[in-house]
């Protein structure tokens, strides 16, 4: 098991970052996410918006890893739950994979809050727990994933003409699974 955490500061106000975070797919920086669906969405009695989403991701596993894992399945699903509190100005997002759970589990938690000293900035704290199960290469794979998370967390780009189009590569499973297939995502640097 590998626990990983990080903090990142965006040079944009909270509202701008949250709008971008809610619409971050499709994302040319992360082509592994091939589908996003809202399964459920509701306001609670404190005025917070809860969204449950299903992300479909396409893995880019090299054949050697496929052979080791014993699967040729490359489509996997991630469930994501986010809560946006517009009064407290806080967004919390948890995601976990719901397929291939016998091989790997990745639980990620992100929290976006305004910077305590500068309201024009936003702080993202990010943590993930990665567990690769029953595979002899597990510690190698876990390290690979944690390293990828670490580098992806700092990849921030502005695309398109709108300021809200701030894209953060932060949803772990897509990032690291793409990286397991180094062919797929590592070309998306800028």
């Amino acid at each position, binding site marked *: 098991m590998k626990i990983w955490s990080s903090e990142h500061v965006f040079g944009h106000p909270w509202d701008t970052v949250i709008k971008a975070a809610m619409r971050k797919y499709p994302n040319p920086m992360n082509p592994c996410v091939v589908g996003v669906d809202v399964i459920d969405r509701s306001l609670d009695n404190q005025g917070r*918006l809860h969204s449950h989403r299903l992300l479909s991701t396409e893995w880019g596993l090299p054949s050697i890893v496929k052979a080791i894992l014993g699967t040729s399945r490359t489509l996997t*699903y991630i*469930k994501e739950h986010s809560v946006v509190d*517009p009064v407290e100005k806080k967004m919390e997002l948890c995601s976990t994979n*719901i*397929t291939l759970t016998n091989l790997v589990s990745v639980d990620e938690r992100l929290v976006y809050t305004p910077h305590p000293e500068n309201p024009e900035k936003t702080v993202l704290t990010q*943590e993930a*727990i990665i567990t690769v199960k029953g595979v002899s290469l597990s510690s190698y794979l876990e390290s690979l994933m944690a390293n990828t998370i670490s580098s992806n967390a700092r990849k921030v780009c502005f695309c398109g003409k709108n300021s809200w189009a701030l894209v953060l590569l932060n949803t772990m499973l897509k990032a690291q699974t793409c990286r397991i297939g180094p062919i797929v995502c590592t070309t998306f640097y800028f």
Partner: protein
Amino acid sequence: MNSVGEACTELKREYDQCFNRWFAEKFLKGENAGDPCVQLFKRYQLCVQKAIKEKDIPIEGLEFMGPRKGKAENSS
């Protein structure tokens, strides 16, 4: 961005458009007098539920847990 069900992509696009506008222009500004996209969401959701069932995606019965909510106890 596509939907998990090919047939739902257009419904999803219509809903997303409605939601994104409401989210940015009303919700984040503290005006949450109700979600105007409910009908679009219902149509879209019916389609997605069908696709999830057909593809046998295990979304039901899964306890959703963030990293801080207990998995660390099962340390390997």
